[in-house]
């Protein structure tokens, strides 16, 4: 009980509450602007969190992400431009409501579903994470090696559109992680004589470059038509009746989101699409979907934010990110000296619970801030990319500079930004590369430690029951796409 009390005290500190409020306002504004995504918002926030204590730092990331994911529904509803990929699942329904003159109904439903789903996701996180952590406290370097490999495999193979391109991205990240002085042998690796590279590639400028710079370039070259936004009626009118009628969709969406989000590498996008498909299959009027129907909107909207919360389960318990945002969070936890994994629940449980409470608070804040941004949305949507893209670029520059107070960070951001842009242009996912940079060190350390323990005997990796199960899962993840590819090739040749 004292842990909960300590956690509540940590969250109620003015610094934490202020960070949550400011990050929420920032997230809801960024998400509402077409072209700016939650991941990019988080990437730009990281340099600021660098100067904060762990709880306000993580709480602000969680708040910004939750708000931006909901706010992504606003351009989707009013302009048919989904603000985030997760909003794309139900954009046809929400836009159809706008066309019949009821944008406030679509946005009101999205807002309440996001809040409900988010709270369910936090509850799943609060229940599942400590239980899993208790089980995982007996893990050794062998299990940690498999867990790191499992996380990397999920991100590269399951979450990526093309497994090969996902692997390519991951290998790039692993190579980047090996840059710098090898701590064991004191050998500089791939530093090309640069003193700045001796300490390795700075994660934050690399991440800002890969996630934010491609979006800046895309927005600078985008031609946005003149926007005519519709007028908005009262947001809460008739909302209670609809939700009383559709409570099953809300609960099911929250549940699906919590389940899918907890799978490593899945994330909110997949959760929203899965929930929408299930809502349609279970509906008595599936033909109405895509034409302004509320069932899919409520269910996928709830799944969206629920997945965002439950993606933190594998992140906090095993150090395996659930999506791109939690991949960044892992990097931040390492920077704050908090190694994600079961030990964090033993060493600093109050910090973990404080993060969970902050998540809950952020989801509850969705209603008042969501209401405000919906009222203000017409003005936000009128900001042309020509004005905000250069400002975002300036944020990227100052954020990269602030980490080591040198221009080298800015050049790192630029280099990784160009790589990220080429990756995006060629449908090579960026998240596996970021994960490779973050987890590469841990993967190498746990592998070498295990090999030294066993004096080079590879069977150590399957010497314990949990390690064997994890090895089998990793094997299946890698084997399935290979077998599928071989079968496809066989079919083509025959």
């Amino acid at each position, binding site marked *: 009980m004292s842990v909960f009390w300590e956690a509540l005290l940590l969250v109620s500190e003015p610094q934490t509450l202020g960070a949550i409020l400011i990050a929420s306002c920032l997230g809801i504004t960024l998400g509402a602007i077409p072209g700016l995504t939650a991941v990019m918002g988080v990437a730009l926030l990281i340099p600021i969190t660098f100067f904060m204590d762990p709880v306000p730092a993580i709480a602000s990331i969680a708040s910004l992400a939750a708000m931006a994911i909901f706010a992504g529904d606003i351009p989707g509803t009013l302009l048919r431009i989904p603000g985030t990929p997760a909003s794309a699942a139900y954009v046809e329904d929400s836009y159809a409501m706008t066309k019949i003159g009821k944008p406030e109904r679509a946005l009101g439903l999205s807002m309440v579903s996001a809040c409900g789903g988010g709270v369910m996701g936090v509850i799943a996180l609060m229940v599942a994470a400590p239980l899993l952590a208790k089980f995982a406290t007996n893990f050794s370097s062998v299990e940690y090696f498999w867990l790191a490999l499992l996380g990397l495999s999920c991100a590269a193979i399951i979450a990526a559109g093309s497994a090969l391109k996902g692997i*390519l991205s991951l290998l*790039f990240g692993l190579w980047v992680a090996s840059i710098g002085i090898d701590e064991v*042998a004191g050998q500089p690796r791939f530093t090309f004589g640069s003193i700045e590279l001796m300490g390795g590639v700075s994660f934050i400028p690399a991440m800002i470059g890969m996630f934010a710079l491609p979006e800046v370039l895309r927005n600078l070259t985008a031609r946005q038509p003149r926007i005519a936004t519709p007028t908005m009626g009262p947001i809460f009118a008739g909302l209670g009746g609809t939700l009383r009628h559709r409570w099953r969709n809300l609960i099911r969406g929250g549940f699906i989101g919590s389940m899918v989000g907890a799978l490593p590498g899945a994330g909110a996008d997949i959760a929203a699409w899965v929930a929408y498909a299930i809502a349609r299959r279970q509906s008595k009027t599936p033909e109405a979907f895509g034409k302004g129907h509320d069932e899919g909107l409520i269910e996928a909207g709830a799944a969206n934010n629920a997945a965002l919360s439950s993606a933190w389960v594998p992140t906090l318990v095993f150090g395996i990110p659930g999506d791109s945002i939690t991949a960044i969070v892992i990097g931040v936890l390492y920077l704050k000296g908090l190694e994600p994994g079961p030990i964090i629940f033993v060493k600093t449980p109050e910090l973990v619970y404080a993060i969970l409470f902050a998540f809950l608070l952020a989801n509850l804040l969705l209603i008042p801030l969501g209401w405000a941004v919906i009222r203000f949305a017409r003005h936000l949507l009128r900001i042309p990319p*020509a004005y905000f893209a250069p400002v975002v670029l300036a944020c990227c*520059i*100052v954020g990269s500079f*602030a980490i080591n107070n040198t*221009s080298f960070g800015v050049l790192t951001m630029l280099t990784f930004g160009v790589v990220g842009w*080429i990756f995006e242009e060629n449908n090579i996912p960026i998240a596996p590369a970021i994960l490779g940079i973050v987890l590469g060190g841990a993967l190498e350390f746990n592998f070498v430690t295990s090999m030294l323990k066993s004096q080079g005997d590879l069977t150590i990796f399957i010497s314990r029951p949990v390690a064997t199960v994890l090895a089998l899962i990793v094997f299946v993840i890698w084997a399935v796409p290979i077998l599928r590819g071989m079968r496809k090739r066989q079919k083509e040749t025959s």
Partner: protein
Amino acid sequence: MQINGRLIGAIAICGGVAIIAGTLGFRELPGQQFGSAFFPRIVGSALILTGLVMMVMRTEGPWIRVPDILLGAAKWQVVAALAAVIGWVLISPYLGFIATSALMIWVLILLAGGRLLPAAVTASVMAYLLYLIFGVLLRVPLPLGEIERLLL
């Protein structure tokens, strides 16, 4: 810039070979079975393997295709944005953070089709706001110029 899958595979192979070649000079510790070169060599080998698989897979289309958006005037905006970052690194030690950032934002807004006066206001306000957040509140030693010296 879209690159054909086979060309991506060839680049991956070259990258893998370069990584392995780069590890050849790493010194080994006596009695240490897994030295500094071990992990990068695995990564390099995996890159070569992935590249080979990509090269044997059937892919269509030209080797390199420049997207339509970059064939028009928009390409200069991309070039300008990238050049602006390098420009910021080179100029900011002399002009200071606020002037360099404001100038960069102003030029980029104008190039993207913004209007002169709103662009100038946006650029000045945002550069000053970033200076306040990072330079004053977070105490980041941003490049100092005449404007910053006046404000201090």
